[in-house]
């Protein structure tokens, strides 16, 4: 009745129960939080190239190239239930072939405790901006920054920040190979 094992068992079961209740409490306490914020985004020198996409269908598709200027203060978003933020910048546009296109151009993981006031000046996009087709010229593209709240326990929320911006690609392809820097990231 009072053996070491039975005591250990009771203690263990109680600990697990307390942890579960605390975790549920953490989840419930931030259930209605909206995590909104405002950022400033700038699209710098957008151009369009027409190249063979070897990572996809090996046909010639449009490749958009631009630099990004981002400014954001994410400190207000971190509460006790936010473990990390997954930031991602989405380019959204319409083409005659597809009524909705979304391409993630840049992303970043910000953990709690890391520097949350971020400022990037004319950085290259992290991922290639391939279109599924050849319709980027003269296209009006909207850039918006979103964050995925990754909590200790609870909902996986996606929030779009206020402060999206739009730009228009030029109506001519760039054919010179030295016209713009290559994006970093995937091959």
């Amino acid at each position, binding site marked *: 009745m009072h053996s070491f094992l039975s005591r250990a068992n009771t203690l263990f079961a109680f600990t697990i129960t307390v942890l579960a209740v605390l975790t549920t409490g953490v989840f419930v306490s931030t259930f209605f939080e909206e995590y909104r914020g405002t950022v400033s985004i700038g699209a710098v020198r957008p151009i369009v190239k027409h190249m063979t996409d070897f990572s996809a269908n090996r046909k010639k598709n449009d490749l958009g190239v631009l630099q990004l200027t981002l400014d954001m203060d994410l400190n207000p978003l971190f509460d006790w239930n936010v473990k990390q933020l997954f930031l991602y910048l989405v380019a959204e546009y319409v083409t005659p072939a597809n009524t909705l296109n*979304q391409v993630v151009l840049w992303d970043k*993981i910000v953990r709690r405790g890391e520097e949350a006031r971020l400022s990037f000046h004319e950085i290259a996009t992290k991922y290639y901006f391939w279109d599924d087709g050849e319709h980027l010229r003269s296209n009006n593209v909207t850039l918006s920054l979103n964050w995925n709240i990754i909590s200790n326990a609870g909902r996986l929320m996606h929030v779009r920040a206020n402060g999206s911006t739009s730009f228009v690609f030029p109506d001519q392809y760039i054919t010179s190979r030295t016209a713009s820097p290559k994006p970093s990231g995937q091959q």
Partner: protein
Amino acid sequence: MHWSRKLISRLLRYAIVISTLLMLWKSLILATNCSQPILVVLSGGYSFHNLGDLLFVTNYPADSIRAGDVVVFRIEGRFIPIVHRVIRVHEREDGYVKFLTKGDGNSVDDRGLYSVGQLWLEREQIVGKVKGYFPYLGLFIILLSNLPLLDRLLLRVVT
């Protein structure tokens, strides 16, 4: 009481527990419209999924899948589902939509994981969107799942 009556009574009690659990699981599948509403993370490869975490997944048709969503998908002929993030969406006027996914920690997209010649994910291959998350609870389930019957009834595991 005769020994056979006791035995039958005991078996019926077990059967009631098991069938209740099974019905709860099936109801959850119906409520979330998803074939795998709860997943247990088996590997710590992904950016925020640690061993033993529980993921809650739903698959409502009206809840469209957009860039940035974390989805569970299964490739043709593969048993184990993958949990990655959508990085590209292209939707046509007729409603046909295709996706490209990538794991957060990876530098390349998932095309190497898809079937040979497959460049995009289609809606049917997506099991659902990850909506919520409970840490470590799955460790207990993983222990439980070592009993073969419970493993099939309760949960699937994900890499």
